[in-house]
């Protein structure tokens, strides 16, 4: 069961945007990657202080996840700039952070070699990465062996198994399904949920996770229907949803299918609350693609730009730099960087092992480091933030607003 659920909401975020049939493409990408590997490498930003502290940043800035990876790098740079402008690490004589960026090319093999290369080629104090759980799992393995701490927003529960150098400050995949079900209870006193999911590993495992948790949460699942991913027409499926009498619709879908589903629900004139989950759904691009039909749609995230005043400050700066609001992974990454700063200050050393020790005793409830749903970070022995929880979000007036749970809500949930 757990295994299923880990993969369940497993931030298949990246997959949500990537198309499914990839074999041909993968082949060409790999051959291309082989050629590009020489040209693209780590691009160390010049540090200004005498003894800068190297922080590795592993993100996919080319390949299928490139768009999000580029956003992550922007956030990593923003965080480092914020730290350095505030005077760097005081306990180390104002040492500046130096970001060592590497492109993992949305590819697991490249992730392994790049993580290795980054660690052996630079004196790193810590690493952040890699957005997609599939990539982070690999990077985390390499970090464990090299004894360099990695701090990540990836949500796979697998990252908390038998690891000492991996820290996950945000909600785990297994917590997402529960939050979704609880949100359905806000929509109606008698939540009747229709779960439609694509018949792939991602859809099947996530939907099974929901099915298992539903009875305990008092949510009735009235329709449980797999569909073939990449369909041309969502109308027949939505006809079935309509006939099921559901008042909430959980769509475990990749972006393209989700867009068709949302539009069709609107055309049918069906009054139903839609929960689009996480990943691609909580990105600024989703609204751009779906337009006003996205209004009122719900989802879940591990971070949102309105969770705290500090988050709003970060969001404003991120918006200034990139033109988009600060998406969940980017915001979580800024917070993670400040957790590293807190650890470095206390460790008084750039040594990765000492940084790891300091991270394991981290306990913050204020400042940028505590910028998470719940507002507190303290790692348990499995590297999990014991206060970590997801935040329920909803698209309202072109913005993604936190609506659940009550403590994190910045606006009431609109019952569309």
């Amino acid at each position, binding site marked *: 069961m757990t295994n299923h659920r880990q993969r369940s909401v497993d931030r298949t975020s990246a997959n949500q*945007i*990537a*198309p499914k*049939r990839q074999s*041909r*493409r993968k082949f*060409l990408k790999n051959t291309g990657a082989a050629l590009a590997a020489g040209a693209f490498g780590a691009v160390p930003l010049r540090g200004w202080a005498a003894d800068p502290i190297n922080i590795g940043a592993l993100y996919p800035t080319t390949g*299928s996840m*490139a*768009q999000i990876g580029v956003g992550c790098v922007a956030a990593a740079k923003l965080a480092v700039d914020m730290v350095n402008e505030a005077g760097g690490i005081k306990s180390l004589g104002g040492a500046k952070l130096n970001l060592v960026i590497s492109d993992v090319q949305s590819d697991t093999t490249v992730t392994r070699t790049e993580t290795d290369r980054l660690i052996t080629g630079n004196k790193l104090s810590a690493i952040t990465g890699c957005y997609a759980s599939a990539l982070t799992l690999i990077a985390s393995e390499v970090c464990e062996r090299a004894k360099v701490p990695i701090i990540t927003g990836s949500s796979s529960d697998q990252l908390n198994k038998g690891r000492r150098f991996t820290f996950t400050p945000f909600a785990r995949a297994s917590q997402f399904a529960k939050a979704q079900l609880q949100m359905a209870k806000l929509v109606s006193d008698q939540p009747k949920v229709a779960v*439609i999911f694509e*018949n792939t590993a991602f859809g099947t495992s996530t939907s099974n996770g929901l099915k298992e948790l539903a009875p305990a949460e008092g949510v009735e699942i009235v329709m449980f*229907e*797999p*569909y*073939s991913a*990449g*369909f*041309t*027409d969502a*109308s*027949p*499926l939505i*006809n*079935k949803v309509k*006939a099921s009498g559901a008042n909430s619709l959980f769509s475990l879908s990749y*972006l*393209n299918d989700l*867009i*068709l589903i949302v*539009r*069709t629900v*609107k*055309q*049918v*004139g069906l009054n139903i609350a839609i929960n689009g989950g996480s990943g691609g759904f909580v990105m600024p*691009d989703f609204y751009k*693609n*779906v*337009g*006003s*039909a996205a209004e009122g749609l719900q989802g879940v995230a591990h971070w949102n730009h309105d969770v705290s005043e500090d988050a709003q400050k970060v969001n404003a700066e991120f918006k200034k730099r990139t033109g988009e609001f600060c998406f969940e992974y980017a915001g979580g990454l800024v917070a993670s960087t400040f957790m590293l700063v807190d650890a470095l200050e206390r460790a008084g050393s750039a040594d990765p092992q000492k940084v790891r020790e300091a991270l394991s005793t981290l306990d913050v409830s204020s400042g940028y480091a505590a910028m998470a749903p719940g507002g507190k970070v303290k790692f348990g022995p499995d590297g999990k933030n014991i206060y970590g929880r997801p935040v329920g979000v909803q698209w309202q007036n072109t913005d993604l607003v936190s609506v659940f749970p009550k403590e994190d809500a910045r606006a009431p949930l609109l019952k569309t």
Partner: protein
Amino acid sequence: MLETIVQAVINGLLIGGIYALVSIGVTLIFGVVKIVNFAQGEFVMIGMYISFYLATQFGIDPLLSLIVTMPALFVIGMLVQHFLIRRVLGPNDMPQIFLTFALSLLLLNLALMLFSANYRTVHTFYSDEAIHIGGLYIPVAKLIAFVVAMLLSGLLWVFLHTTDLGKAMRAASQNRDVSMLMGINPNRVFAVAFGAALALAGAAGSLLMPFYSAYPFVGQVFVLMAFVAVVLGTLGNVMGALIASLMMGVAESLGIQFVGADSGLIVVFAMLLLTLAFKPNGLGSRRLRS
């Protein structure tokens, strides 16, 4: 219940119209030039991206961009025929198959490189609108697409039956050698046929854009259905492909409704197998080739 069935049939017919545009192109090329164009779906994709960029850069409605996509794809079709296909036409089928397949791969990966794998949508004022009649609804964007698709198919039929060039194309499709003996210039006929087929693919792209996302792999979704329709409606038979496409749309929709959302295609393929078992040449065989 009746309402559900009627709604499913409407949904099926509407999407069947789009399948028809793609399959008519494939069958036209097969009928006239006698090659299977595996890249037809990629030309739908190109049509979609042209419409997408016209819409986002210049604010041109995707439906209006038909005026651009159709001639553009027509010219591309003529060029492809003239510079590529013409060279491999011969007694051996293999080079033709490899050529169009390679073209498909090339276009797909070019699109990945140029446009990335992201989904692109255009949101028009009618994208989310639907006409409601009783408990039924008809999405406006799909209705428009269906009507235009039927108009274009009709126009092609008229062209094939009333113009000299059209008749020459039909003659070439019935018997290439004899038609050449009758003084028909095959290169010209082939180029026009290829151009017309690609223009239809381009039209499909523009018509899809208001309600479907453009991405590099989008053509493959539609080309699969198109190939089934072409076989079902008898290879080379334009009217057969049209009717088969509509039937497949309806079969798929009913399948999703009554069998399961992941088995819509099972119904379609069951239909194909049954047809092949009883009418090996497809539903359109023994009719006049149009």
